[in-house]
């Protein structure tokens, strides 16, 4: 009897991958909205393409995606809208691409945020993961480029990573379409609530700061009881983030607690549109 290569299972129609239907650019009603975040040049567009069946131009240079690209897929009978965000190293400073990414994760309230990370440069990539986990707890880490990591003699223990981050971590090699079924399964579990994320939030050491933060967090929590990320909002306010101050003044932040992501994506409210056009680069 021949032994089966696990990779062969991924292309077998009996596999649950068969539950994936790539919907391309199709519009219409969606059950869930999924955001795709990550550092520049970690293969977000490649993951985007293998989930949606679109051929968004990919290239081996950072900053390839300057506009938000959207696509769709259906998995296990549920329809998902997928939004490819510009690659950013952090969500703290104020360049346009970071603002687009952050505003979408915060105000667009995606049902799942997939953070694509480069397995060969894990430490730097985790900075962004931790920042995303501050804003939203419904996240999946896509540990991409594991083939490249292997080539460089790097092995990542995804179970340890999963324990430390509190969200699903799925190893993939998107260029070779490896790990995509497992990624879909994780996205579905987080979206439907079958998997409840318990993300780690990074500790602040100084006692004075900690006291200020908890005081502020309590205030925010009181004003917006159903806000999923009061500590993050508190941190931003304490740093004097004008965009968040503005969102509190205009009531935009308050609206977040009343409107679902789906309604938002339908009205287009709260997501800062740069341009929906797909920047096709010849």
């Amino acid at each position, binding site marked *: 009897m021949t032994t089966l290569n696990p990779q062969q299972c991924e292309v077998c129609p009996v596999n649950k991958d068969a539950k994936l239907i790539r919907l391309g650019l199709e519009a219409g009603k969606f059950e869930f909205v999924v955001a795709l975040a990550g550092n520049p040049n970690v293969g977000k567009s490649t993951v985007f393409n293998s989930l949606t069946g679109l051929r968004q131009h990919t290239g081996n240079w950072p900053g390839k995606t300057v506009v938000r690209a959207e696509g769709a897929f259906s998995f296990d009978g549920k329809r998902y809208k997928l939004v490819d965000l510009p690659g950013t190293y952090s969500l703290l400073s104020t360049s346009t691409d970071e603002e687009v990414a952050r505003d979408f994760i915060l105000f667009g309230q995606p049902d799942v945020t997939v953070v694509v990370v480069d397995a060969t440069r894990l430490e730097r990539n985790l900075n962004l993961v931790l920042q995303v986990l501050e804003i939203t707890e419904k996240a999946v880490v896509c540990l991409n480029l594991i083939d490249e990591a292997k080539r460089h003699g790097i092995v990542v223990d995804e179970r340890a990573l999963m324990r430390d981050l509190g969200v699903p971590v799925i190893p993939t090699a998107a260029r070779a379409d490896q790990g995509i079924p497992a990624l879909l399964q994780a996205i579905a579990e987080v979206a439907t609530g079958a998997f409840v994320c318990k993300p780690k939030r990074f500790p602040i050491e100084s006692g004075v700061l900690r006291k200020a933060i908890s005081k502020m967090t309590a205030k925010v929590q009181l004003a917006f009881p159903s806000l999923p990320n009061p500590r993050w909002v508190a941190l931003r306010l*304490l740093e004097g983030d004008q965009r968040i101050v503005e969102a509190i003044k205009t009531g935009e932040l308050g609206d977040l607690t009343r409107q679902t992501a789906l309604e938002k994506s339908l009205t287009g409210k709260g997501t800062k549109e740069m341009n929906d056009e797909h920047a096709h680069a010849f």
Partner: protein
Amino acid sequence: MSTPMHSKPEQILTTASTLRWEIGERLHDATIESLYREAARIAGRAVILKDGKPRFSFDRTLDRLVTSRVFGFPLMFLMLAVVFWITIEGANVPSGLLANFLVDIAHPFLKETGASLGFPWWLNGFLFDGMYLAMAWVISVMLPPMAIFFPMFTLLEDFGYLPRVAFNLDALFRRAGAHGKQALTMAMGYGCNAAAIISTRVIDSPRERLIAILTNNFALCNGRWPTQILVATIFIGALVPSHLASAASALAVVGVVLIGIFFTFLVSWGLSRTVLSGEVSTFSLELPPYRPPRIWRTLYTSVIDRTLIVLWRAVIWAIPAGAVIWLVSNIQIGGESIAEWTIGSLDPVGILIGLNGVILLAYIIAIPANEIVIPTILMLTVLVSGSAEVGGGAGVMFELDSETATAAVLHAGGWTLLTGINLMLFSLLHNPCSTTLYTIYKETGSARWTWVSALLPLAIAFIVSFFVAQIGRMVGLE
């Protein structure tokens, strides 16, 4: 009763500013610090290195070579020259085969079919000599070089070479007062200027982004590559023995690319010291790992996404342009066709800048797409020089079987080496096509900057051609 909702936001903001006074600036640093510490701790637990340290030695060695001060630029130009050489050498035969089929076989067949269906001569001419032939010419001349050039360029891109180019050029751009990422948008311009204008969004500072937009035109787009390659083959390749002709033509095209880069820097420098002055912003550019390109997928996507999309654009512009050319060549006013009359009036200006009236008229007809400049020029040249035995009569766009025949037509039209050189320069420097201008308008939202981006290159093209013509005539190139 609880506090009314509207007072809460203000309360929060007051608390925030009070607390901010207490903690000062420390929070930002403390957040970043603990973020980095936590990331390092988690990564340290999850990453296992097989040999104690990661092996990036191949990448490092290659990077040291391609970004070296000594070898960086020569390697860049060598690579460019090889890509052009392969394109020029490889495109000849398929171009001839396509022309043979589309023009020599399909065209007479279509005309006969039209005649047998009882089409009047003007309808037959308008449809098949005007619209169809324009399209056939564009396909046979553009498809082969694009199908060779684009996959090679995409493979280099997939491999990770573009950021190294940006790295090499960064210091020069900074000295010109522009953003280093302009090197990336410039590289995109070698494909399509309109797409490159959209890609300037990677540049945050509006000042530097405008500089990148206004100078992107000096990166030859794929509509202009065929013009450059053909004219270089006819006029530069002819200067050397035939076995060196392809190499000499490839080097001439590299030379034009270099002149384009020179003007990119010169104009960026000029703008950043006058109307667009300001600080140069710093940025960090990550040199991504080299990745083995997936050859088959790259070939597939570059043929589908680039070649066919660009070809389609060329075809849909060539069809109406073919119609316009046929009409202006066949509508007579006072015993002279509109085309002859326009060429006659443009000739004095054209000759002053080392070109001629035909070329200027062709550039006016070809404003929507640079791709159709050469077919238009050839057709108009036949029209005025009267060498009708080569072409197919008034207003017929035709494909000439070999470069020798094309050269014969151009020489009959009074073309010299100087005309060829000036045409290459004019094609490099003149205004962007209307699609690019529309994209610039959409991106900048300013009619003023759109006009600047059209008129500035045009003025430079006229000035440079004028001086080259004067100097060329002095040293006897004509």
